[in-house]
């Protein structure tokens, strides 16, 4: 088993216009999807992120009071999962509820540093 990071980007537009019922449904999908991952012992963890943030550049000397990324590029959350291979991890990521909000999901393996 290897570990993979899923970076979820975008989705803000749809997210802002969704009805409370729609939101409720969406959260239930997260619940089901992550629940099944937890049951299969494939879930390490994961969190949604706030939009506000700071960006540090120039060796940490310069701090900008916002993330550089806009809209579609903004990371809205992440997940750490266990999978056998990148193909397997991608297969798992296909069911991520964030696609309901037109997000993009990037799947990357954790690199062992020898």
């Amino acid at each position, binding site marked *: 088993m290897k570990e993979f990071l899923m970076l979820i980007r975008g989705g803000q537009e749809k997210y802002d216009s969704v009805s409370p019922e729609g939101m409720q449904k969406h*959260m239930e999908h997260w*619940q089901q999807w992550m*629940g099944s991952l*937890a*049951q299969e012992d494939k879930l390490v963890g994961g969190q*949604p992120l706030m939009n506000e943030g700071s960006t540090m550049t120039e060796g940490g000397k310069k701090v900008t009071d916002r993330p550089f990324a806009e809209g579609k590029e903004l990371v809205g959350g992440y997940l750490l999962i266990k999978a056998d291979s990148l193909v397997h991890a991608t297969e798992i990521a296909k069911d991520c509820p964030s696609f309901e909000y037109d997000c993009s999901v990037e799947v990357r393996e954790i690199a062992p540093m020898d």
Partner: protein
Amino acid sequence: MEPKDHIDNTINHLFRQESGKMVAVLIKIFGTENIELAEDVVQDALVSALETWKYRGMPDNPRAWLYRTARNKAIDIIRRKKHSKTIDFSDPERKLLTSEYTLASTMKDFWKEQHIQDDFLAMMYACCHPDISQENQITFILKSLCGFSTKEVAKSFLTSEDTISKRLYRTKEYFRKHKIRPSIPFPEEIGVRTSSVLSAIYLMFNEGYNSTHDDQLIRKDLISQSMWLCKSLLDSERTQLPEVYALMSLMCFHTARINSRITEQGALILLPDQDRSTWDTKLIALGSNYLNQAAFGDALTTYHLEAAIAYQHCTVLSYETTNWKEILKYYDLLLNIDKDPIVYLNRCLILLELYGPEEALEAIEEIRDHKILNKYYLYHAILGEIHERLIQPHIAVEYYQQAIQLTQSKPEQHCLQQKIARILN
């Protein structure tokens, strides 16, 4: 009634009914290693309720308000302890509590009506685990599932709060050490496991029913709580066993007579002298109903037989018309199940009614010098009764006096003193 009184009463009632369920759900959330944490959250929720309702009045649905408050407090605790080792998040059920994606909805799931009921029953079975002594079982049930304060539990057992705290600590340690996961037993073992739950409930009931207590409130509480626990078992399909109906029936019959057993001054009134018009006919009807429902399957338990005996007493119009022959049959069946000396002793009383003092004396000879019975007041009281009827007043008085020495209960002592006075005058 002042609004504040109304709130206090509602809270008290709500607390008794709901705190155990909330504790059960929270133990499921935090794990049996964190029973205190669960109890603290419930306490907090109740304090919040008191404070808020005092100013804003009662909400439309106090129960829902209480559950929501407990749920939100639990969410705060999970967020605070997410990275500590206190809660075991490796469990798939709890894993989802660590992510904000799923924390709120997982929490909601935990508080679904069906889950609440199941968790409560599961906790009852966990409390009555055979490895936990019966004293500790009941102590824990009263404290955690029935919302008794340590002080009230101490009063129930006529012991010190310190003793109760020690008992609670031992039980919690047991849960912690063995990481017990409360669950409703599988069908193949539910019978055995339910019998320990029933025996704890019946013991609790007797603690309230027997007149050792001066404290009327505690007694009524113990009775209503044991009936409520039994009713909880009947409300779930998995635990609707014949013996559960039988115990419920038995408790209804006993409770129906409760107000006729004691005078205003707290003196005991014996069955022949009880005013049958004060018996609660509704409860008797309810008891009969439960007894009918207990008659499925092939289980004939002591509860069935005791309920059948109580039914005989409750459904005849006068002491004189009691069907002693029928009752004797049930006693014989009881002794077939278990050679309980106390049951044997009570059977002697039936013989006394049915065949007179010589028969009863002959039967009681069989258990003379029995270690336990010698210390039991009723044994000496019955011997007194037998000798009184044999017109041997001096021997009778001696036995009665011995019986007085052996009981702590003032009403029982008083009752025996009256018997002596009756002989000597």
